[in-house]
């Protein structure tokens, strides 16, 4: 589903605004950094204390002491800063990040998010996810619309253990762009190659369809 991921990432990138401070989660969200629109300057935050993540290093630039939260080697941009973990999470919790983008196992129509634990399987830990979803001004979930087996990930009520309560503001999948509103899932855009019927089928909760439904893709 490389095309699906590409489409998700490009659509999320259109949500970036000049001057935004942004944290991108591991996986699909990290790829958003490759599609920053021209003329827009954003600062990427990493939980381990780097504000101003640059591109991956060349072989000569590799520094074991400079990694991102996914433990990958990175570089720092001119004007970046490096702080301790307590300061890094003061930025997160204190509402200083404009946006965080992360994946999900389930999102429900109240904006509850489950993305860290499946009971009965190995529990790896929540890392910084609980702080990020509670602290950032906007929380965008970037994920494939359904599970590999076709199961619902957009649901009426999350059945998996929660990462955060009423935290998600927007969901971008390969099929749809959905705002999470007090009234529930509000469908703003659908992908060019899908239909409203197919989206409804792939969604486990009611959809409020926007009067001026747009397309993307």
């Amino acid at each position, binding site marked *: 589903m490389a095309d699906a991921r590409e489409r998700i990432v490009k659509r999320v990138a259109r949500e970036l605004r000049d001057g935004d401070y942004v944290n991108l989660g591991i996986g699909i969200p990290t790829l958003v950094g490759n599609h920053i629109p021209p003329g827009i300057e954003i600062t990427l935050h*990493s*939980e*381990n*204390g*780097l504000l101003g993540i640059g*591109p*991956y*290093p*060349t*072989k000569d630039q*590799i*520094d*074991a*002491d*400079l*990694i991102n*939260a*996914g*433990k*990958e*080697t*990175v570089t*720092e941009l001119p004007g970046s800063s*490096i*702080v*301790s*973990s*307590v300061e*890094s*999470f003061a930025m*997160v*919790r204190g509402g200083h990040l404009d946006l965080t983008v992360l994946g999900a196992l389930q999102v429900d129509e109240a904006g509850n998010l489950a993305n860290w*634990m499946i009971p009965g399987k*190995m*529990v*790896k*830990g*929540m*890392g*910084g*996810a*609980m*702080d990020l979803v*509670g*602290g950032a001004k906007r929380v965008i979930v970037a994920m494939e619309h359904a599970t590999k087996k076709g199961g619902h990930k957009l649901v009426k009520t999350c059945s998996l*253990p*929660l*990462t*955060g*309560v009423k935290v998600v503001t927007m969901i971008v999948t390969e099929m749809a762009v959905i705002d999470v509103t007090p009234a529930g899932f509000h469908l703003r855009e659908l992908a060019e190659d899908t239909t409203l019927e197919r989206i409804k089928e792939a969604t486990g909760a009611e959809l409020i369809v926007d009067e001026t439904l747009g397309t993307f893709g």
Partner: protein
Amino acid sequence: MNKVLPDAAAAVRLIPDGATIMMGGFGLCGIPEVLIAALHEQGTKQLTAISNNAGVDDFGLGILLRSRQVTKMIATYVGENKEFERQFLDGEIEVELVPQGTFAERLRAGGAGIGGFFTPTGYGTVVSEGKETRTIDGRGHVFERPLHADFSFVKASKGDRLGNLIYHRTAQNFNPMMAAAAAITIAEVEELVEPGEIDADHVVTPGIYVQHLIVGAHYEKRIERVVVQDG
């Protein structure tokens, strides 16, 4: 005053069985790899480890887990380590998982003499179960307690005999808070410098938080995920 000990073996001789030890680092970045190796060599047992991660199978904290020297861990993310996973699933090790920002702030509280704090992180999740909660400015908060330890192992790039420390890039992470939060902090540094060589404006961890210091003889600084750009 000279806080410098001859080597890591001399430093870990201070650690008894059953000790609670904080260890700095994020993944394998900025971990006190020399002190961990010496503690492994010494074979000290029944340890409680407070660390963001659990190392990998054969490096960092992972080597203490493999030799069953750790019976309890307080951490935020413990993937990347198969032996840890096995011990966890078999109930051989006790684990407390903490959201990372809460973990950092609990360490800070421990070092700063704060009896705990209310945070919105984890409210309404399993993290808030059994804890005091309070609504502040209309938002649910969870009460979190400070973290303390008998010892901290911290890793710095440079230090002086007074214990002043400075870190390199993201190897800083949890090290400064851990230095303050333990009764006895042992710092390992890559380079020992004269007092004054680290400008007072640039000292990150002041010597008051550091009781002992060693110079690491050799650093492997293993990287978990080497990612390079094309060309």
